[in-house]
């Protein structure tokens, strides 16, 4: 375990045993992790717009509109899923222990929401599944199993991003169905000697999706909107990153996990 994470474990234990913190007092933790990558979402989602018709010149016009999805948008989306608000400093992480996207508190270690597991109740079925290692591809690198030693790998995998919200409780006002595959480059590097181990790992995943969304189409004479599918196009990048610098014995180093976990 990394030194800074040991400190966080101690801090969390202190909080659990009564130390006051506004975040800790308000937040409901559903888990704990010491092995996670910080996530950065920079995505764009284009949605097909209603076809326009100019009857004077018999012209049909098709168009789409694009929106951006950053971490704040994903956090807002997950807050809707969890039907809650996140405490200040809440962050998105890929939890290498449970292999899913999580919302963690500002320490990064206390889990507020397991997005991969999501929500499944009488009024809402929703999840956000992220797996940058969905299908493993080729990889290259070296491993020097000695002390001092090092390990460096780059892998080329296929990742998956799956966002689904079926919100019948509010008449599908937030309905969503995004299912993107794409190239995922994974990095792993660590070096160690008899006293220390420094390293990092991460990924850069570019999901693409052309699946159909679910939009309100046309308002019927009764005033009720009908639901129709409309095309979407998702592009952009999701990156994950974790680094460490510890004084652990090399036998405790994480390299045994390797990039091909």
């Amino acid at each position, binding site marked *: 375990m990394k030194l*800074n994470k040991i400190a966080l474990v101690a801090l969390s234990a202190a909080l659990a045993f009564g130390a006051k913190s506004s975040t800790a007092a308000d937040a409901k933790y559903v888990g704990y992790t010491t092995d996670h990558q910080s996530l950065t979402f920079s995505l764009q989602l284009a949605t097909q717009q209603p076809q326009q018709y100019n009857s004077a010149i018999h012209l049909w016009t098709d168009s789409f509109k694009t929106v*951006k999805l*950053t971490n704040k948008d994903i956090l807002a989306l997950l807050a809707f899923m969890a039907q809650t608000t996140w405490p200040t400093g809440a962050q998105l992480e890929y939890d290498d222990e449970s292999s899913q996207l999580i919302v963690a508190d500002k320490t990064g270690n206390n889990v507020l929401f397991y997005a991969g597991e999501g929500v499944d109740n009488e009024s809402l079925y929703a999840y956000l599944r992220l797996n940058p290692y969905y299908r493993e591809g080729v990889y290259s690198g070296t491993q020097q199993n000695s002390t001092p030693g090092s390990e460096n790998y780059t892998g080329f995998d296929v990742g998956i991003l799956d966002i689904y919200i079926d919100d019948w409780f509010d008449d599908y006002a937030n309905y969503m169905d995004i299912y993107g595959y794409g190239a995922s480059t994974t990095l792993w590097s660590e070096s160690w000697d008899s006293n220390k181990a420094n390293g990092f790992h991460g990924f850069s995943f570019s999901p693409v999706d052309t699946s159909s969304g679910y939009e*309100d189409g*046309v308002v019927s004479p009764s005033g009720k909107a009908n639901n129709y599918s409309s*095309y979407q196009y998702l592009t952009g990048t999701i990156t994950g990153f974790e680094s460490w610098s510890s004084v652990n014995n090399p036998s405790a180093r994480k390299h045994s996990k390797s990039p091909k976990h």
Partner: protein
Amino acid sequence: MNLKPLTSKWRLALVLAGISALMTACHRLPPPTGGTAAVQGKPVPLAANSGAAPDTNAFAAAELAHAKYVHETIERLVSLQMNDDPASLAAILAEMKNSDKAIRDAALKATIQFNDRSAIPALQKIADETTDPYEKVDILKAIDYLKLPSFTEYMAYRRSLKAAGQPTNAPADAPMSATNPTPAAVQP
């Protein structure tokens, strides 16, 4: 040969290298900054090798001290990007003029994640002043991205339409209606 200044320099270098190595060991390496993460996250070499020449150690110490500064600045930017106040945005934009490219890259990514279109004029000004053509393109791309409505804004708009009984979208195969007056069968 006067050995005294050299000895003092040697001691200073050792002390600096030791302090830097200790600080480095107790801190995480730089956080993610997209495609350049591998470069920024490269493990910092251990500094206090007693066999190295004094000048080498002094250089290593300075390098480690700078790595620590870069790391702390980037961590601060990552923290600021999740805020919503003008002061945080100003602090992020101020780092766009940092002499360290890794920090400027992180500041640009933090600006994108801050997700506030009020940053666009300042970014445009910085882009105009930037001589590095690649950096200029990155800034201009960030401006284009910031100009887009956010997904959160889009969803709020969609909900407002739905609450008002308006269609949020009407695909090409929608039946005839006031907004789509021709049946799908005759559409091109």
